[in-house]
């Protein structure tokens, strides 16, 4: 279960605050996954006291609203990543984001953007699909580009497979939908190092030239996850 309480002293109108919190949740907590198990209790409560002395933010379109939205996104993303980082039994955190230069990164902090898709929602959906696939291969330190491509492919977001490009860190594994020869030992060492330091796995994926940006975080699946949950009995 995910619980959160967020507070601010900014002065903001109720309806604006609610929209902001929904946007921030969709860019943070709703983009994390550990085990694909959606709890009955997940809740985020966000309170605004309004006593900072700031001027009232009464429109989502104002510059001040964008400033506050950015702050809210940052706090919620910071907390969301720490939850995925702390996934039961996890040895490393995975984050997925695409960016403007059409590259998807899958790493402790990686960025997923759907190239050629309509926008943020599509990018976020692919990102979370890749992050939430069991990716047990990551725990096995296996640079399995095929499974990453598969997870991107079943996200129900259309893209042309011949535009698919995947790299692990800066090791290019696939380009233009074609698997490439790569240094397998170096790629495995990259994953192993991340596991040993509970650190970062970075994978870049491109699927076209779209405008949207999305990111997601997950963690690798280890034996410990089963052990922890087998003992957490009702």
């Amino acid at each position, binding site marked *: 279960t995910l619980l959160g*309480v967020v*507070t601010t*002293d900014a002065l903001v109108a109720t309806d604006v605050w609610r929209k902001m919190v*929904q946007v921030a949740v969709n860019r943070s907590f709703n983009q994390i996954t550990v085990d694909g198990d959606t709890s009955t*209790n997940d809740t985020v409560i966000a309170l605004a006291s*309004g006593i900072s002395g700031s001027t009232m933010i009464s429109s989502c379109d104002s510059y001040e609203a964008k400033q506050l939205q950015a*702050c809210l996104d940052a706090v919620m993303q*910071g907390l969301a990543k*720490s939850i995925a980082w702390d996934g039961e039994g996890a040895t490393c955190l995975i984050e997925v984001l695409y960016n403007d230069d059409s590259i998807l990164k899958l790493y402790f902090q990686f960025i997923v953007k759907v190239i050629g898709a309509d926008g943020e929602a599509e990018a976020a959906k692919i990102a979370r699909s890749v992050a939430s696939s069991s990716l047990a291969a990551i725990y096995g330190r296996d640079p399995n580009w095929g499974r990453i491509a598969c997870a991107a492919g079943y996200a129900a977001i259309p893209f042309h497979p011949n535009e698919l490009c995947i790299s692990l860190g800066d090791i290019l594994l696939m380009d233009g939908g074609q698997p490439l020869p790569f240094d397998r030992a170096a790629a495995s060492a990259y994953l192993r190092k991340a596991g040993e330091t509970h650190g970062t796995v970075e994978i870049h994926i491109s699927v076209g030239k779209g405008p949207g940006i999305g990111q997601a975080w997950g963690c690798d699946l280890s034996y410990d996850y089963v052990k922890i949950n087998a003992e957490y009995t*009702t």
Partner: protein
Amino acid sequence: VSSSMNETSNYIPAAPILLPEGPWKQISGGVTAAKGFKAAGTYGGLRAKGEKPDLALVTCDVDAIAAVLHFCFDSSILISSWFPAVRADLCAFENFPACAFTTNVVAAAPVLYCKHVLGISETARAVLINAGQANAATGDAGYQDVIECAKALAQLLQMRSEEVLIESTGVIGQRIKKEALLNTLPRLVGSLSSTIEGADSAAIAITTTDLVSKSVAIESEVGGTHIRVGGMAKGSGMIHPNMA
């Protein structure tokens, strides 16, 4: 009070928080960094094992506007078969503008309760969080437990019970240990503070299988004024949220 908070911080370390870059600076204080908020976390005997704090409280000195995002489902037929007592309230809830729906049609009693109170009040002043039992799939009895706890806390804080929001986490299928919770409330309220320790102890008290506590705050300038945004979260297993 201060000694018990120090003990709290000894239980689990704080998570490394990876903040995106931006025009803000990270400050300490979590949920108490923003003006007007206090927090506390204490052990109330709610956990199945160990004496890590398991009851947290966040309060606001003024009426804070609230935005709550949690599970909602629209199958009122399903509701009426399980929770006849809340059905009428939920219909009123339909007007709740910030809601969206998730594929999970089972919502825990504290979630249903929060929907109810935020359907009738746009502001909240307290969030009570227990760790140990999720109070999910606990039927009418679980819902009544939530109402009793909210009422008891509201009396102690001298506010309306609609201004109290509740979160629960822990073993699904189990009701909260209500007596232990009610007995702990006076001490919890007494330990409220706007200090960093208050925020840290609350962040630890809401954890279950977490290995680290998650708490962060930033300060930035909005419209020329310094504002603060802070928060705490918990979660380690059963993590695939679809909140709206």
